């Protein structure tokens, strides 16, 4: 915006705005920036020691990284998170993509109601979902099983897939399917050859959202997981609540790196989708 012709009051306003934004961005990033260096703390507490501030090499160490890498519990938790995350994502992606195809059809009956139902796991407070699931899955014998957690996490992940794929489909030119149909392609062929390649970035980013949801979810896990299903967030929860140790800062740093990778992937996908959809 060009406002250079403005009087001094406006320039001051602009400086104030910029300063405020700088502070707000600091607020946004501070938690992430502070945790990474603290994970190299040589002491077992959550504060910067004087040695760390003096950059004394002895005050910095890989102690906590060694500890989590050498700890079976963290390794098992990571494996559980990965397994439950991948399985629930696969389930959520297939169901969510199919449903989004249906929802995007102009002929879909009761669309609002169906959409509301499908989105409900996303807006319902997790504590309520977890409570209900705990009782119901217990009666089915699914509490304390991987299967139960996979189903629960898939249910929580589907709204994200529905939303991203619906968005991708809304940018989709329906003339393409009509053209394909007029050339004699069956519905399955149209989906595979025409629709899927174009909405693929939407599907993948929905899947990433679903995965991130499962990978970060702790409330349902708290209610439904036994010792064999402990996930990474559950282990971290224990770390913060029950037995406090900076080892969780090392895990946190790993999760931050993971978040950066996720962010870059989703961003890349969005760009590709934007380029493909011509938006």
């Amino acid at each position, binding site marked *: *915006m*060009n*406002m250079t012709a403005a009087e001094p*009051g*406006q320039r001051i306003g602009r400086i104030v705005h910029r300063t405020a934004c700088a502070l*707000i961005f600091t*607020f*946004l*990033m*501070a*938690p*992430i920036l*502070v*945790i990474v260096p603290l994970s190299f703390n040589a002491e077992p507490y*959550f*504060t*910067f020691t004087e040695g760390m501030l003096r950059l004394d090499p002895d005050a910095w160490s890989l102690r906590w990284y060694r500890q989590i890498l050498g700890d079976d519990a963290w390794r098992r938790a990571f494996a559980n998170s990965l397994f439950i995350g991948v399985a629930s994502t696969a389930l959520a992606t297939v169901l*969510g993509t*199919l*449903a989004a*195809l*249906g*929802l995007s059809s102009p*002929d*879909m*009956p009761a669309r609002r109601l*169906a959409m*509301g*139902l*499908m989105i409900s*796991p996303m*807006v*319902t*407070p*997790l*504590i*309520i979902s977890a*409570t*209900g*699931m705990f009782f119901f899955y217990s009666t089915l014998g699914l509490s304390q099983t991987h299967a139960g957690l996979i189903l629960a996490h898939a*249910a929580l992940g*589907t709204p994200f897939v529905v*939303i991203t794929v619906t*968005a991708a489909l809304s940018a989709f030119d329906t003339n393409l399917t009509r053209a394909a149909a007029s050339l004699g392609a069956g519905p399955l062929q149209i989906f595979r050859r025409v629709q899927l390649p174009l909405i693929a970035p939407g599907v993948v980013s929905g899947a990433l*959202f679903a995965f991130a949801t499962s990978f*970060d979810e702790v*409330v349902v896990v708290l209610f439904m997981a036994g010792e064999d299903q402990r996930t990474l*967030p559950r282990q*971290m*929860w224990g770390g*913060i*609540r029950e037995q406090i140790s900076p080892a*969780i*800062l090392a895990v*946190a740093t790993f*999760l931050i790196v993971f*978040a950066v990778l996720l*962010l870059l992937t*989703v*961003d890349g996908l969005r760009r590709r989708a934007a380029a493909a959809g011509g938006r």
Partner: protein
Amino acid sequence: MTRPARRAAALTLPLVAFTGVTFVIPLATMLVRSVHDPVVADALPDTLDRLRGWDGQSDPGEAAYAAAARELLRAREERTLGRVASRMNRVRSGLRSVVVRSARRLQDFPDGPWRAVMLDIDDDWGDPATWRAIRTAGDRFTARHYLNAADLQRLSDGSIARQPPDQRIYLPLLWRTLTVSLGITGLCLALGYPIAYLIAHAPPGRAGFLLGLVLLPFWTSLLVRTTSWIVLLQTQGVVNDLLVAVGLVADDGRIALVYNMTGTVVAMTHVLLPFMVLPVYSIMRAIPPQQMRAAASLGAGFPRAFLRVYWPQTLSGVGAGSLLVFILAIGYYITPALVGGQSGQLISNFIAYHMQTSLNWGLAGALGGILLACVAVLYLLFDRVGGLERMRLR
């Protein structure tokens, strides 16, 4: 239904069925629990039968004592005594130990007369209030938990009254949850609007970078962010260190910023800020920059042009973002649980408490039902302002 309509419905059917079974039915069972509890009714059918015609004041009679003795013993053998006793205790405190102790002692008495035996074991059996409590606890369907969640109680004459002042906690809690969520929404708006504006009007390269700064916390594990707020805000934490270093605060006068409401508000504002920035930003991007220039050229100063021309156009984004933040805030559990201490707890934390610690599942269900109703109303509003249509995840 037309063929394409059937096809579309068939595509959505698997997910509708899946969400129905894995999510909606579980919620429904939780809500049923808030009004339905068969534990006592199933364990003491005969006793309750005997009490059906009882006037509630006189002695319930030998038959009732005999039935109770037999059924309490059976409950002990079947290991359901604990849950039976805990239900009764919720109607009348102190009854748990009476019931559990009596069942244990009853083993030593092969024969009646049961009235004498039970009075011998515990005087409380001679108090009609004990039997009234059993009768109340034996109702399969009850509004008790919802009354309790509204700080009300049913008196023995059937009328409804407020709880004694020191036990009125849930209405203030609901009020606290709503006001704190509103405050957090306001903070998110105050912090989110300026940066959304900055990003929306920055050159593309820088906008992408700044947007990345908003999105990184969004993608970072919630537990990681919450942990870092503990690290930042604790008494010997980074923020207090800085305040001491610049001399704003004395070293022995460090401020308590975490494990109280301050911690909850700060951490939740941080966690929810991206949910405000994103919808507001996407609305702002759609506003043609020429408008403000036109307003300026017509002689409107920036504040006036902003208020008259710009702000009204962003209102739908502000509305969607605010509702989203508010919906998420009132149901938040993890962050208050970890950084809220006692004073920073919200309604979700009490649901968790009654689920996991007091095991008052009916009350947990009732509080959950109330929270769910709030969310449902807000969600309908959210859908009304078109938030759902425009929701784009990134």
